[in-house]
């Protein structure tokens, strides 16, 4: 493949697949640009072990044109790396390594896509300021050469920057700013909830500033890199690995390039595949590779290493959600890692109840996340949503009709952390359906549901008791008056006694609920029999 052909294909790929990549309309393009930039910033800070402080600002140029500014306190980039990082699609080592770790990067095509969108809609270059510790701040204006997919430096200078280190990117683009669901504000808020170690400041086009302060003082543990697990391997990847490995025999290939494969497992796989362990990996035919893959899928292999997964943690997630929504009640569950198709993953669920923001009579708010990134679109198509609707919420204190999203003053958060999250499409907004994932999510949701039920039940009982007390006090006034009139006793004395008795009965829990059979209860059938040719009562 010539350089030229490849460059054209990248540009064409973007042009033709804008809708798949999150740039299909001006509203979404703005959101995706912010998302790519913020993901980049958080990743940069975390890899440098810095608690992220990210500023996001949207400036209005005209009704259809906005300037997106994202600034972080990351380590900054050197003169060598900066142009490629912002102005070359699919730049970086991510795509050359087999295996993986839990990362935000999997989510999008990268910040360069936003740079290209900006360039395509305005013709303007991206402005990047980046400063490494102890070095001057570089100011670069960058464009992407769409024919060659290489960065073009439009201008270059240095400035004094008050920041010790960090990166700031500014992109101007055709866009539309909205505040409703799936908006920039919503994205930032949700991002802040699942990244409690980050401080994110947002300045909207009106100049209104909102800050989401970090509530965690420590960075999350850095996820470890893991090799692919035999159960999850696909033929394309296997063929590439066979081609690029430095292993000399197929046996050592399996042992060195895969997770949880020792000599015993390797022997078993090769026996099932009917392959000579001494064959050089590069000499395998596609047919043989296919046999090998099937053998790998079928072999007994230990579950994958899970150190690659870093959950937010139930305590932190609960705290983060509670503070953001000012909740009456919350509960969070972090499941232990599980596996789908050889990929380790884990599910975290948090549920919040009772807040000014959560109306009683509407469907519960649902926040879905994959690897700490909010999923704002395609809620209905997502396996995480399916897990929510598959739970019987009626038994957990919420209303629900059939398999619909429950109704009540609650918010449900579902986070899936995985080396490789299975999205339904390239736009990466919905998790595909795997029984293992739905099952894990359901278990976590049910556990949260049980905690919710305890709270709601207690609250309802308290409310009912108060309502009951009010009812008896109300009736007592009339009752006292009637008894006084009938017996000649003093009304206020009878009333006082009734108030005292009501308190006592409530305290003792002595109030009858349904009651001994009362005269009224069976009245209906009698009417049917007797109400006949105008019989009078």
């Amino acid at each position, binding site marked *: 493949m010539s350089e030229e052909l490849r460059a054209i294909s990248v540009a064409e790929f973007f042009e033709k697949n804008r809708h798949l990549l999150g740039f299909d309309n001006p509203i979404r393009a703005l959101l995706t640009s912010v998302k790519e930039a913020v993901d980049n910033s958080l990743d940069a800070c975390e890899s440098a072990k810095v608690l992220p402080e990210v500023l996001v600002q949207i400036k209005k140029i005209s009704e259809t044109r906005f300037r997106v500014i994202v600034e972080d306190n990351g380590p900054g980039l050197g003169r060598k790396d900066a142009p490629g990082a912002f102005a070359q699609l699919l730049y970086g080592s991510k795509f050359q390594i087999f295996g993986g770790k839990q990362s935000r990067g999997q989510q999008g095509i990268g910040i360069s896509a936003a740079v290209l969108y900006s360039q395509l809609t305005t013709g303007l270059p991206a402005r990047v300021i980046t400063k490494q510790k102890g070095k001057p701040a570089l100011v670069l204006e960058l464009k992407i050469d769409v024919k060659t997919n290489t960065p073009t430096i439009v201008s270059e200078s240095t400035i004094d920057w008050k920041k010790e280190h960090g990166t700031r990117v500014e992109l101007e683009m055709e866009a539309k700013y909205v505040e409703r669901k799936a908006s920039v504000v919503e994205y930032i808020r949700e991002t802040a909830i699942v990244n409690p170690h980050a401080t994110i400041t947002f300045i909207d086009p009106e100049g209104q500033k909102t800050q989401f302060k970090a509530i965690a003082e420590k960075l999350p543990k850095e996820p470890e890199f893991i090799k692919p697990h035999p159960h999850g391997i696909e033929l394309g990847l296997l063929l590439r690995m066979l081609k690029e490995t430095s292993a000399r025999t197929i046996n050592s290939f399996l042992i060195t390039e895969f997770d949880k494969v020792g000599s015993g497992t390797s022997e078993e796989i090769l026996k099932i595949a009917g392959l000579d362990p001494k064959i050089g990996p590069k000499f395998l035919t596609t047919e043989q590779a296919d046999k090998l893959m099937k053998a790998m899928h079928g072999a007994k292999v230990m579950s994958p290493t899970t150190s690659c997964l870093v959950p937010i943690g139930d305590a932190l997630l609960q705290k983060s959600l509670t503070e953001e929504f000012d909740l009456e009640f919350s509960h969070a569950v972090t499941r232990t890692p599980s596996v789908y198709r050889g990929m380790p993953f884990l599910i975290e669920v948090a549920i919040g109840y009772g807040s000014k923001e959560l109306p009683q009579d509407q469907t519960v708010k649902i926040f879905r996340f994959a690897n700490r990134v909010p999923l704002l679109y395609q809620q209905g198509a997502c396996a995480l949503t399916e897990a929510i609707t598959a739970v019987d919420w009626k038994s957990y204190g919420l209303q629900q009709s059939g398999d619909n999203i429950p109704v009540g003053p609650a918010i449900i958060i579902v986070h899936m952390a995985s080396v490789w999250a299975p999205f339904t499409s390239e736009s990466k907004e919905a998790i595909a359906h795997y029984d293992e994932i739905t099952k894990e999510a359901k278990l976590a949701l049910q556990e949260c549901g049980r905690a919710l039920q305890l709270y709601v039940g207690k609250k309802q009982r308290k409310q009912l008791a108060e309502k009951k007390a009010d009812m008896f006090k109300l*009736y007592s006034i009339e009752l006292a008056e009637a008894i006084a009139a009938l017996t000649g006793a003093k009304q206020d004395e009878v009333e006082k006694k009734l108030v005292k008795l009501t308190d006592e009965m409530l305290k003792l829990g002595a109030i009858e609920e349904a009651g001994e059979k009362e005269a009224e209860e069976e009245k209906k059938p009698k009417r049917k029999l007797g109400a006949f040719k105008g019989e009078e009562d």
Partner: protein
Amino acid sequence: MGAIKGKTKKEVLEALEQEAKQVLATINEMKNPKVKIPLRTLTNVYFDAKEKMIKLGDKTGARAFYNVNQAKKFMQTMLVAAQIKSLILQNSPTLDTRQLFYLLRGTMPHSDEDKFDDQDESDAIIEDVEVIIDALREELGLIAVPKGVIAGPLIVEDTVSGDIIDYTKMGAAGGAVPASVEPENFKFKKCTADYILVVEKYAVWNLLNQQRYWEKNNCILMTGKGQPARAERRLVARFEKELKIPIYVFCDMDVYGYYIYSVYKQGSINLAFFSEKAAAPSARYIGFNVDDYERFKLPKTARIKMAEDDMKRIKEVKAYDWFKSKEWQAELDKLAKFGYTIESDSLVAKSIDFTAKTYLPEKIKKKEWLD
């Protein structure tokens, strides 16, 4: 003339006060106040074969104040009792239950909840109070709207107004049955009649009155205009107990007519607690019955084909304990087999004078009745 024992106003007041005192005493003991209410359900209604009337059994239910489902009814029960006491003390004229509802209406203090939502609620509580203190609505100073008419040799004193009413001097309209016919305010002064004739239909009564049937046959002629109201039933019961003369009931020859007769005679399921004061077990069914059709050679035009519902109703009535006598079972079977009804109005088809001059005198003379 001895009156049926009813409760005087003083006794009613005492009963109301006693119930309230019992409630107050329970409150003072810091216990859940309750009132016992005889069950007015079908399961607690039975036919007393000895006394020949429908009666209320002795099952009772308890209504408690500290019961989530009964608290309001309990309060309403006391409100109705207090209202009745107040009316009696004021010597108030008798009121209709709807009028009582208007007296009881209102919202509770510091609340938008009504004491009574509608008249159905207060009507049910009134019936409860009747059975709690074992007194009739009329004794509580409340009435149901009457509709009966009387003519005949009877003189009554309206003790409230002091008016003397002579039912031989009522003209074509006859004298209305008042809402309350309790001995306290409707006192029999004189009666020379040989029997009471109760007819189901006003049209029949009207014709007989114009023909001065009551004068020619020396009887009291009365109608309850179909299914009788409380006052007509109570009055017939008083006739039986105080005048001690025969009572004959003349109805349509259909299952509904038969049932109306049974209400006068044995009481009704709805008001089983009222039977002892409002049933006249000696009442006899003088007609019209199936055999009369052939015997008196009525024209075919007097017949109306029975509907399916009528047949169904015959089966139901046949199953009632108070229709279990041989004669009545046979009569109902004959009616079902005959397949037609004969309204008492239709006898004019034979001749205008037929009912007054032939049918009734002959039936009574020959004692051809059903008991």
